[in-house]
């Protein structure tokens, strides 16, 4: 039971980071049906800028939390600028172009951002300064750190804030109008170009926060970190129903938990030596040996299978609405 609870805590924390990244994907998708494949790189830039700032400020003897906040405060505008330029130069000229064209520019932008980051922050695996002292609290046999609690809390706060922005402000109304029908929204006096640009900027700001969260939690950053994180978050967004804000959140958390449980339990479930029929006959099972068909190495396979199963039964994702779009 302790193990199970621990796995849930692990999964929820990892999932929270995915969720914040997924919010960035889903916002952009919601408004212009574009998968911004370069979003992972925005997260990377966020982590890197914060890395530099924290390294500059930490020796000055400021309180750790202040340093972290300043780091994040610097990462957010840089990422916003990256997000805006991306939209302005790589995506806006392609509105109305075939759907796959922006996908290729996204890949191009991704390559460019990665290698610019390489020039600035080197190829090395950077140890993200651990200025927040990690404290572990034990609940029975379940360990949870202060950083984990903070990450989960921040994640929910971000989602709540985003939901307020989208559903309770004039800007949010404009966003939703643009998402439903850009032409008509334009006729109603909404500057759709501006609304779309703002969406990218907000998404990039979320990406910056996600980058800092990732760096603080795992304590590592490298110029290639964006691709794998982006991929997971994209899966999370689709799982929850891409374009849907609570969906991205749900998808992220669920993906984190599925991964944790997958790594934690599939190995035992597929150990043939646990089953009477094989235990006697298999050579490998003697002397307490094992014959594991699929262990933690199939963690990602397991999460992709869950994703595929969900999509087969709910092709629009968990919370998504059915829309008639085309490839």
């Amino acid at each position, binding site marked *: 039971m302790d193990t199970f609870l621990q796995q849930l805590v692990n999964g929820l924390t990892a999932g929270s980071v995915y969720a914040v990244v997924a919010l960035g994907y889903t916002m952009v998708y919601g408004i212009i049906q574009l998968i911004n494949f370069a979003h992972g790189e925005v997260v990377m830039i966020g982590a890197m800028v914060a890395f530099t700032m924290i390294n500059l400020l930490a020796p000055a003897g400021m309180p750790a939390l202040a340093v972290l906040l300043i780091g994040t405060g610097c990462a957010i505008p840089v990422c916003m600028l990256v997000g805006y330029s991306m939209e302005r130069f790589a995506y806006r000229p392609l509105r109305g172009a075939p759907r796959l064209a922006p996908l290729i520019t996204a890949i191009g932008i991704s390559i460019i951002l990665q290698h610019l980051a390489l020039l600035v922050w080197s190829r090395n695996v950077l140890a993200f300064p651990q200025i927040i002292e990690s404290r572990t609290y034990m609940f029975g046999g379940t360990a949870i750190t202060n950083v984990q609690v903070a990450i989960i809390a921040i994640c929910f706060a971000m989602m709540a804030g985003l939901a307020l922005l989208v559903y309770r402000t004039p800007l949010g109304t404009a966003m939703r109008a643009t998402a439903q029908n850009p032409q008509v929204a334009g006729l109603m006096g909404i500057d759709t170009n501006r609304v779309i640009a703002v969406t990218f900027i907000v998404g990039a700001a979320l990406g910056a926060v996600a980058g800092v969260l990732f760096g603080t939690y795992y304590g590592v950053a490298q110029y290639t970190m964006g691709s794998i994180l982006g991929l997971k978050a994209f899966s999370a967004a689709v799982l929850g129903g891409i374009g849907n804000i609570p969906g991205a959140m749900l998808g992220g958390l669920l993906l984190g938990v599925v991964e944790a449980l997958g790594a934690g339990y599939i190995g035992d479930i597929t150990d043939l030596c646990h089953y009477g029929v094989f235990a006697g006959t298999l050579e490998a099972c003697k002397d307490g040996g094992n014959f594991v068909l699929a262990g933690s190495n199939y963690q990602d*396979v397991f999460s992709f299978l869950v994703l595929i199963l969900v999509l087969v039964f709910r092709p629009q994702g968990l919370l998504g609405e059915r829309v008639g779009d085309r490839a």
Partner: protein
Amino acid sequence: MKHPWAVRIGVVLIAVTLAILPFALAQVGTAWVRITNYAVLYILLALGLNIVVGFAGLLDLGYIAFYAVGAYTYALLASPQFGLHLPFWIILPIGAAVAAFFGVVLGAPTLKLRGDYLAIVTLGFGEIIRIILNNLSRPVNITNGPQGIGGIDPFRVGEFSLASPQEMFGLDVSGPIKYYYLLLAVLIAVILVNLRLQNSRIGRAWEAIREDEIAARASGINTTNIKLLAFAMGATFGGVAGGMFSAIQSFISPESFVLVESVMVLSMVVLGGMGNIWGVVLGALLLSFVPEILRWTVEPAQMALFGRMLIEPEVIRMLLFGLALVLVMLFRPAGLLPSAVRQRELTARGQGELTERST
């Protein structure tokens, strides 16, 4: 044959060029022959993916899985791994069939999915295949896991092996040059098949599905079968290319079949012009050669311009490559050589979009 003589001369000229190309390239360096061979493999892959993405309009981000299936089928049946050494003309069809089977396996559960949902499922499928290949070293060793399979047989007929250099007609013919001719022959066959497919009943059915699935079904097209056929056909080409890759490389490991490769092949298709066979060929050639040309020129160019190395050449190479992708798409959003249908579509786009959105 009613071709005007100018066309005939053109065909002859192209044929002669292609025939002497490897020897010309070998003068510059055998590396270029190898690069050309890999480029031809990428053209095969891109043409296969073009059936799925370009003809049938199904976004596939896991295409490299079929390449992997073909490559591993060949490697397992013609290497010391299981001590099997079957001749290539038996394995290649097996590889193609296995890949086609996997194409249907991927296609069947995803029939209902559209657009971006299909993209993520195919992406997941590609990763699943790679991870399984990477981990099938235990509990029973089948693929040798990340260590890869080595000592794979080259294409061989009796004593004649495509891998070893030998003297023919007074010319030194290296292994890569021999493979070039084989690849060229396969490529010509595949292009011919593709050209025929495009204008066949099946080709038109794919096009109908791409344009409007509901209308296609209403016109009596069995969309399920036709979609599965697209996946199977595309996968077959991937499988054949994979088998040849295995033989040429003589060593394969799962790291050759990563997601980035799928993305590259997709970029070739989109960049060249989805649905246009010659566009796809052009896209594959460009994306295969540009990084290599940059590899040879960035360093000397920098030395000539600035007299010293300002930025490491490999970083410039990647930056220029990324920039090229962005610029081509910005200036030719439908690809370098858009298909005729796409061109019509683009001009009529504005109206179509309004009605589509309002549904």
